[in-house]
Structure formats: C-alpha cells, structure tokens
C-alpha cells in the first residue's frame, strides 16, 4: 500500500509538471481576468511571443512582487493604482519606455516609466428596483430614504476608495461621512463585498463603487445603474510598467505596444473601462464627460494612516 500510494503520488505530480510551460514574458496584473486573457491571446497570435500571467488584486500582486524582490520573476506589471508606479519609479525599478502607440494617450495618463492601459472611475451604484429615489450626488445618500441602505467599500482595502475619501475630505471635511454614519451606512469590505448586497437588494446603493464592474453586471441584465455624482469623483488610471530586471525587455515593450494598439484598446473598451487613447470610441461616459475631483497624491498619501484612522473612528469600527 505504501509503494502504491507513493507511485500514484509520483504519477499525479508528474501530470502537474506538464502544466508549467515556459513563456517569453511574465505579466502580473490586477483586475479583469477576461481582459488580460483576450490581450495576451491577441498578442501571441500577432507576434508569436508567449506570455504567462499572474492575475490577482493590486494588494496581492504587490505582496508577491515584494516577496520576490530578491529574485524578480515579473517582466510587465499592470496595476490598478497609479501610486504603485510612482513608488517603483522612485525606487528605480522601472525601465523608461515611451510606446509609439502612446501618442494619443493624454499626458496625465503617461510618464517616462508608466502608461495607462485603461481608466476606471468610482461612482454611485444604485439598485433601480430598491424603491428609493435615484441619487444624483454623494450627499443624497445621507437622506432618510437611504437609511441603512448604503454600503461603502473600505478605503483601507482599495486604493481608489482611499483617494475618493481623501479628496472629498480635502474639499469639504468629514461632515459628509459623519452624516452617512448617522444614516446607517456601513463599511462593507472590498468592492465586490459592497456591490453584491446591492444586486440582491439588501442595500440600495454603493457609495463609490468601481464603475466598469457594475457596468458589466448591468449589461448582463442586473437592475442597477452607475451614477457619476455631480460634485465630482475620482478616476483610477491603471498603469503598465516594465521592470529593469526583465530579461525580455524587447518582448515586454512589444506587449505595451500591443495593449496601446487600436485592437488592444478596443478590447479594453469592451470591458467597460475607459480606453487610455482618446481616439478609441467607448460605449460609456469618458473622462471628458465626468467631473474629476482634484487628487493631490503628494499631500494625501503621507497622511494615509491618519485619514484611515479617522475614517474608521467615524464609522465606529
């Protein structure tokens, strides 16, 4: 029995090895699994360059890169937070590259070392069958009609939620959040945890949900609507970057070129993200249609811990 089980273990283990195929470039990405699959499939079909993908949340991708730092594996990183690109640039980890296809990408969505793949924005996601009036602005959710019916994604678990919180506080102070707490709004974990109860109708609205995910659900027939508040919201450009440590820098550059090509950007638009290039049409409101709150990264990030602590205290956590 001992020999048999050892043997079968070896056979099974052997079958696992076949899964690991060697690829030319390794891409780490936060966000839409469907999108990265389409992009890498199209890229390999066009160029013959093979890719391997690790897809997770920004936090998990970053944790992996930090833990691997002594012996990096990643060639190209697509994150959901521009701040990660700033940090890696400062630490001198990134390869400067300007893709010829980035000509139509506005200046604020590119730097020497990073360029946006696409852009998401935060909005109010509202259940149209909730029996509540359609909200038009953040402050509407403090009204008695929404008593106990509002979810807020935790800014400690999402970079863009943090930027929204910080910039709203910088504009008007903590008053809005105190009122939300008085109205029974709750902190509901990460984006998906906040959105699900709104789909089923347990809650009426999410205060600051990631827009493209909700638009995808809406397209599938869920009775929800994404509303961009009149007083402004924040956007989250998703930076792509190449690591200096990469052994396949030419192939990595070609991948960036592909994502910024017309074909690549159309795939981005098809997932309801805003494409980075201004000349690609999209079936959704674009940056020019939204009022964008000013986000002063230089002043909000140093105060992150303090802001999160005040936020937690405001909601009695």
């Amino acid at each position, binding site marked *: *029995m*001992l020999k048999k*089980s*050892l043997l*079968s*273990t070896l056979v*099974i*283990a052997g079958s*696992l*090895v076949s*899964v*690991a*195929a060697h*690829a030319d470039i390794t891409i*780490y990405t936060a966000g*839409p*699994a*469907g999108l990265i699959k389409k992009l890498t499939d199209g890229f390999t079909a066009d160029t013959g360059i093979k890719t*391997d*993908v*690790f897809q*997770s*949340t*920004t*936090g*998990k991708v*970053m*944790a992996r890169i*930090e*833990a*691997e*730092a*002594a*012996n990096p*594996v990643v060639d190209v990183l697509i994150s959901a*937070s521009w*701040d990660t690109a700033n*940090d890696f640039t400062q630490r001198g980890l990134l390869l400067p590259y300007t893709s010829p296809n980035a000509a139509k990408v506005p200046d604020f969505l590119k730097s020497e070392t990073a360029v946006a793949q696409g852009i998401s924005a935060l909005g109010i996601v509202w*259940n149209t069958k909730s029996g509540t009036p359609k909200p038009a602005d953040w402050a509407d959710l403090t009204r008695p009609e929404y008593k106990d019916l509002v979810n807020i994604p935790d800014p*400690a678990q*999402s*970079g863009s939620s943090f930027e929204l919180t910080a910039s709203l506080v910088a504009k008007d102070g903590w008053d809005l959040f105190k009122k939300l707490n008085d109205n029974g709004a709750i902190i509901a974990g990460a984006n*998906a*945890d906040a959105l*699900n*109860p709104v*789909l*089923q*109708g*347990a809650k009426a609205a999410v205060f600051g949900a990631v827009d493209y*995910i*909700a638009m*995808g*659900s809406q397209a*599938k*027939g*869920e*009775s929800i609507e994404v509303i961009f508040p009149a007083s402004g919201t924040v956007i989250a450009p998703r930076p792509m970057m190449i690591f200096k440590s990469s052994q396949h820098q030419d192939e990595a550059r070609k991948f960036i070129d592909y994502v910024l090509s017309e074909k690549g950007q159309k795939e981005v638009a098809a997932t309801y993200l805003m494409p980075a290039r201004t000349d690609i049409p999209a079936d959704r409101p674009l940056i020019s249609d939204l009022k964008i709150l000013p986000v002063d990264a230089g002043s909000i990030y140093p105060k*992150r811990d303090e802001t999160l602590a005040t936020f937690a205290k405001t909601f009695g*956590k």
Partner: protein
Amino acid sequence: MKAGAATGRISGTGPLFWAVTGLLLLLVAFPLAFIILQAIFPEIGHASLARPFSGMVAALGDWKLLGMARNTVALGIMVMAGAALLAIPLGVFRVLFRLPLGRFWDLCFLVPFMIPPYIATLGWIMTLQPRGYLQQLTGINGAGFLFSIPGVAFVMVLSTFPVVYFAVSRTLEAVGQRYGDVARVFGASPLRAFWRITLPLATPGLAASLLLVFAMAIEEYGTPAALGRRAGFDVLVTGVDNRISDWPIDLSGAAVLSLLLVGLSLIAFFTQLRILSRRNYETTGGKPQAIERRPLGLWTVPVLLFFAFAAFIACAVPLLAILATALQRTLSGGLAFGNFGLQNFTEIWSQGSDGLTALMSSLSLGVSTALITGLLGALASYFVVRGTGRGRVLLDALSVLPNALPGVVVAVGLILAWNQPWLPVSPYNTPFILLIAYCCILLPFPVRYANAAFRQIGTSLESAARVAGAGPVVTLRRILGPLVAPSMVSAMLLVFAVASRELVASILVAPVGMTTVATFIWRQFEQGSVGLGMAMAFTAILITTALPLIVLIAMRRTRMVL
C-alpha cells in the same frame, strides 16, 4: 530501512526518523524561518537586513491589538465549544448505536468541509440578509443574527464541526462498548458508564480535533471579515489581511501578527499535551472486538430528526443557496420562475477549457496532498507517540504550527524561502509550490488524527510482533498500519477536501499561468459575476464529493470499518 531491527522498535534516531524530520523541517520550518525573518527584517525580500525590528514595533504598537487578540481567543473558544456540542452527540449516536443511514450521514457531514468557507459565508449572507432567499420565501430575514458575534461563530462551527465528528467517531470505534459494558457489570447505569468510562477513553481524538478546530477558527479570515466587521468584531487575522489586501502593503506587520497567532496555537497545543499526558488511553489490545451497536428503540425518530436538522443547516442550506445563486439569470431578478436558467453553467464551460483545467489541477493537487500528508503524518506521529528520541516534541510542535498560520502568510514565507537566488533548484513557479503549500498547511490533520489513533493501541501488539520475529518496518506495515488506517482515511478525506478548494495561499503562491478551482471562483466574484462563481463552486463541490464517495464504497467492499 533496517534501522533498529535488532530491538524490534524503530529507534528515535534511525534513518527513517531523520528522513521524516528532514521533510518536516523543509515543509514547515524552512518557510516559518522566513516568516520570522520577515517579522524582524522588513526588507528581507530585497535580501537586506536593514531597519531590524522597525516593523515589529509599529505592528505591536497598534492600539487595537489587545482587543483583536482578545476577540481571537474568544472566537476560537466559542467555535471549539460549538463544534463539540454539535459533533460529540452526532459521533456518539453514529458509532455506539444502530443508526439508520450511517454512511449517508457521514457523507452529509463531509460536504460542509468541501464548501470553501468564504462561499458558505456568502451563501448564508444571501440567504439571511434583507431581501435574501429566506425573506423572498418566507418574508422574514435573519440579518440581525447573522451579522453578530454569535452569527460569526455559528457559520464557523458549521464549517469546522466535521473535524470533531470524524475524530470522535473514529476513536469511539476503537474504544468500543467493551469498557462501558464492564462498568455496567459493576453496576453503573448506562449513562454513568458512558460519561465515566467510554467518553473519557475517547479523549485523545476529542482533544486533538478540538485543537485543530481552535487553530482553524483563529486562522480563518473570510467569515469574521464578512460578518464580524459590522458588529465591530475585529480579530488578528483581519489585521493580517488588511496589511496585504491593498497598496501600500506591510509584509512585516502581517508576519508579526501571524506569529502572535502561532503563539496562541502553541498555548493550545501544550494544554492539549498536558491533558493527554495525565492518563493512559490504550484500548486496543490483542483481543479482536466486534462493535456491538445498541438499538435506539424509541429514540430512533428524535435522533434521526437531530441528524437531519444538523445535515440541513450544515449541508443543505449552503448548497441550496449556492445552487439558487447559480441558477438565477440575474441576482436582482430574485427567486422568480422566469429568472431561472442554466446560463451560468453553460457560460462556464463555453469560456474555453479554463474551468476544466482548474478543476483537474485542484483534483490532482488534492489527491497528492492527501497521500503525502497521510504517509508523512502517520510516520511523524508514530515517532512522536512511540519514539524515544529527544526530537519528538519538536516534531510534534512542528506539525501543529502551520494550522494557525494564516494561509496568506504561509504563502509569503514560501515565496521568500523558495525564491532565493542561491537555491540550485526550486519548486517556485512550478505547480509543486502549491503542493508544498498545501502539505505545509494541512499536515496537522493527519498528524493529530494519527496521534490519537496510536495512543489507543497497546504496546503489547508490537511486543507480540517482535516475539514472532517481525522487524520494525514489518510491524508498522502489518500491525500498526492497518489499525490506524480508518483514522488516517478520515484525515486524508478532510485533507483532500480542504486542499481541493484552498484559496488564501493559492491566490498568492500559485505559479504564473495556473488556475485552481478556488482562484477561478474568486476571480468571478471579484469581477462581480457571483452567479458564474457559484455555478463553478457547485460543480466543483459535486465532483470533489464524488471522489471520497468512491473511496467510501470501495472501503465497504474491502470490509474496512468506516
């Protein structure tokens, strides 16, 4: 393998002992060492020892830490107590009495273990929250109960009690009715014989499984995060995850908090050791014994109702919630006739072979992990219980630690350890790293179960084998192996169940390009496709349940008692 042949016992320092110890050190101590290094040196990932202890000071200086530690212990104890209250009566009725449908109930209580905890929790939320399934069906909702501290404990008890159920039934099976019958001959009432003789003799299995439940409860992240936060109930592991869930991340702080969890589980481990060292639990001597199951008589119907109730809340409610979610076209459409359809199931299989590949990967990983940990766990446990060497307490402790480490931290430790540039060969970025991760996390199950089983076997059997001329390996294979086999099979089924759906470590440590069932489902959730995720979850649960079912039937054929 001939070590100690002259003495008839495998000596505490033979080559097999060192091989087992070496494997344990590699599987558990190697990554653990890097977690400790990470806790002390925040920049160890960059191969730098700069700013030692800075992360530790910051993490331990957190004003909320004391409350979180208190909540963690409280939750661990609540879940342990709840699991004991539910599982002990179930196990006792299953083994000591003639219970109709015995194997069916075994299967019902294995299923909660097949359901990933975060999916079971989501199922409960979707059932009990306002406008959830319960309200859609009956007009009432249970949100007040669910999003409370008892609610957290309730959901966690339902996903952990099988550990106690299987351990109690396996040990009681070995104890049998014989000692209780002796007490009855001396005039004890049936109840008194049970309380004073039979149940105390089952202590090893009970204590071992409760230790596992405690460690699982303090390590589990999903349930307290989803249900407890609204009640202001923060535990240590939510603190760990917060440090790794978004940019900027704090690996050092996460490692420090995880070591606190390890400390807690070590305290529990030594408490268990003290309880077990007080008495002798040997019940399996040379005499063969057939289990005389007593008839339940008038109690048959109430006992069956109790089993049905337990199976309903632990198995049926989560499964039905998962199925209902998977079958609805849209969640906002609710449980309406026109809203049902198979489109989530068809979409999963039309997306290409990804779902199928993920399923195959998870199944092979589950089976491999069960076989490896079963063999290694049984050997390690043999040395701990029977050995004479000094290293055996170390061996025992090593094999309990990973249970209390949050999966995400085990993953970080494994990456730090196995991605060192100086290693000549490394399993990192191959599927073997997942196998190593699962073996590390799940080794405690077979070890605890085997420890309990070995404690019940009298040494006279080994002496008899020695007299008959059997060497130590033959004794282990022919005498002890078959006697601990039922316990090992139970433990390996549990390992298979967990390994084929492990999420937390897999998310971080999976090799590039590889998807497991759990990461596949989790990605669907992250993208807001709850129905798709649930369709995959339901399919995976069905398939992973079929495998143990085949094992159970095969064992019945070979007349192995289970």
